[in-house]
């Protein structure tokens, strides 16, 4: 067992017993990243110097008996988080030279615990994508099989944790961007309830859907990470001032009386046979563990992708209006006038998927189409949210696939945006409903591609969600399998 094979909780114990120092752990990870990043392309920025300085400060804190859960642990962040003094690109040419003047709240909270920021992770540009192929810094490769995509948009977050380049990572999830890559890379990923974690300092894609969450090796690590970042933040007026449970102490393994729903609309044509089998076996495992499995209906499921691609693109077109070449980022030279400068800057700075979504969103919000597209989608969103609230009157959690297929090949869907969008069919409804959900490893396809299980919880009940996930994890071995990478 090498240092980088240890989980966050295991490393914590070794640091506290002084069997390892934070500097030793950090050096091990930096060496591992240097050796593996050329093949995987998971990191956009590697924090060689700052990470060691932070590790020294962490060792000091540990020596003074002031260690907290994350003190001295190397954590990587998707390059969508503002990180003071570090380059933050959002995987876009338009922010190529941008250096954050401040920390996002999620970053500030893990820094308060003296975690070590080991690097900034590759992603789909502005979090728009399901394969991590839309990055201005090149695609990330799946550590299980380098011909496959890692999923997206937090592809770097999932791949780096699977390849053991970081003990844990932060990602964001707007339509599945934590859960789908976690599934494709066989790691644990959690999208908390909208409002649970502050979005302050996170570069905005679709503000009513975006949420920050952890990617980890196992469920206990996930609980520890969520504990650090969850909670009300006056700097984000959409964060919710509601109590945060003690997530780790909730991991009791007890599922007695728990009711789990299987939404029948999620087990339809287009669902890969291996994925179906793995998810059905997971449901059977839950039955053995004492949970009651009930079929439920989420009748508006099939409308979710259409609804999402109107709402998310509309919000994106508004959010991305700020990239105008005036205050930060790229500015086109030799423009004829101010409007031409805007148009040329954005043409040169944005990649093709970002342009496509800005165009769709602008169209959906434009005069004459607003009611038919944007307003209609917001009404359908109400129906989708209501589906979940109705289901949660009879069950405590829902069990579904994360994605209709295991990871697909690099290049397979790049020329068909609609097919790419449909790979998020099981994750998108959760963002529209605003509730919490996670992906955890539940098997492999016959050709050895990872498969993830999605558990969906009641709004703000991440404690039950984590307890449900943990009980399954304890009863199975999937999370122990490691990439040979």
């Amino acid at each position: 067992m090498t240092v980088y094979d240890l989980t966050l909780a295991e490393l914590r114990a070794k640091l506290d017993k002084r069997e390892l120092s934070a500097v030793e752990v950090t050096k091990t990870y930096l060496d591992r990243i240097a050796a593996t990043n050329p093949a995987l392309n998971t990191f956009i920025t590697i924090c060689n110097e700052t990470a060691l300085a932070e590790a020294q400060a962490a060792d000091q804190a540990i020596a003074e008996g002031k260690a907290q859960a994350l003190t001295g642990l190397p954590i990587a962040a998707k390059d969508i988080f503002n990180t003071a003094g570090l380059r933050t690109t959002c995987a876009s040419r338009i922010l190529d030279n941008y250096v954050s003047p401040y920390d996002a709240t999620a970053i500030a909270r893990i820094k308060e615990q003296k975690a070590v920021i080991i690097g900034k992770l590759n992603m789909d540009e502005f979090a728009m994508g399901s394969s991590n192929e839309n990055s201005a810094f090149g695609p990330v490769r799946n550590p299980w099989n380098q011909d496959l995509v890692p999923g997206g948009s937090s592809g770097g977050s999932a791949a780096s944790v699977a390849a053991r380049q970081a003990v844990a990572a932060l990602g964001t999830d707007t339509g599945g961007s934590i859960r789908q890559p976690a599934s494709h890379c066989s790691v644990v990923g959690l999208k908390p309830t909208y409002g649970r974690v502050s979005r302050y300092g996170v570069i905005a894609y679709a503000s009513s859907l975006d949420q920050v969450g952890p990617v980890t090796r196992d469920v206990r690590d996930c609980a520890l990470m969520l504990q650090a970042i969850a909670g009300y933040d006056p700097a984000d007026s959409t964060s919710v001032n509601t109590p945060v449970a003690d997530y780790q102490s909730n991991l009791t393994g007890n599922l007695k009386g728990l009711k789990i729903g299987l939404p029948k609309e999620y087990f339809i044509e287009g669902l890969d046979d291996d994925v179906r089998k793995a998810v059905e076996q997971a449901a059977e495992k839950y039955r053995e563990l004492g949970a009651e499995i009930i079929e439920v209906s989420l009748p508006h499921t099939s409308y979710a992708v259409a609804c999402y691609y109107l709402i998310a693109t509309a919000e994106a077109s508004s959010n991305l209006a700020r990239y105008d070449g005036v205050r930060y980022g790229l500015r086109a030279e030799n423009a004829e006038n101010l409007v031409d400068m805007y148009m040329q800057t954005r043409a040169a700075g944005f990649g093709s998927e970002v342009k496509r979504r800005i165009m769709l969103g602008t169209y959906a919000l434009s005069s004459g189409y607003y009611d038919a597209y944007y307003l209609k989608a917001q009404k359908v969103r109400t129906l989708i949210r209501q589906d979940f609230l109705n289901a949660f009157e009879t069950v405590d959690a829902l069990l579904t696939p994360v994605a209709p297929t295991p990871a697909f090949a690099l290049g397979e869907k790049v020329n068909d945006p609609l097919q790419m969008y449909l790979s998020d069919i099981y994750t998108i409804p959760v963002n529209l409903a605003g509730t919490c959900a996670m992906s955890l490893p539940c098997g492999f396809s016959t050709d050895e591609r990872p498969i993830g299980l999605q558990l969906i919880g009641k709004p703000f009940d991440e404690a039950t969600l984590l307890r449900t996930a943990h009980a399954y994890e304890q009863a199975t071995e999937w999370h122990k399998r490691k990439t040979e990478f």
Partner: protein
Amino acid sequence: MKITRTEVEHVSRLARLALSAEELDSLTGEMDAILGYVEQLATLDTEGIVPTAHAVPMENAFRPDEVKVGFTAEQALSNAPDAAESAFRVGRIIE
């Protein structure tokens, strides 16, 4: 056709996004396909349904109007493509 090339060109001006002739061609086809797909929403009866703008129902969030320490001018300008005298500088906008 849900959308024509001329409409795509119009939307690109609204979005302040210069597009090449090739981009206009490919976007017209792609947007047409996507708009065709989202058309299915029209089959749902949403009469009397209240639109959802935010998943968590919330009222306006107020805070006390207090002076707090913000960025210095230097910090605010640290990423500016062009700056002069504590201000962002752009090209001439009035002839």
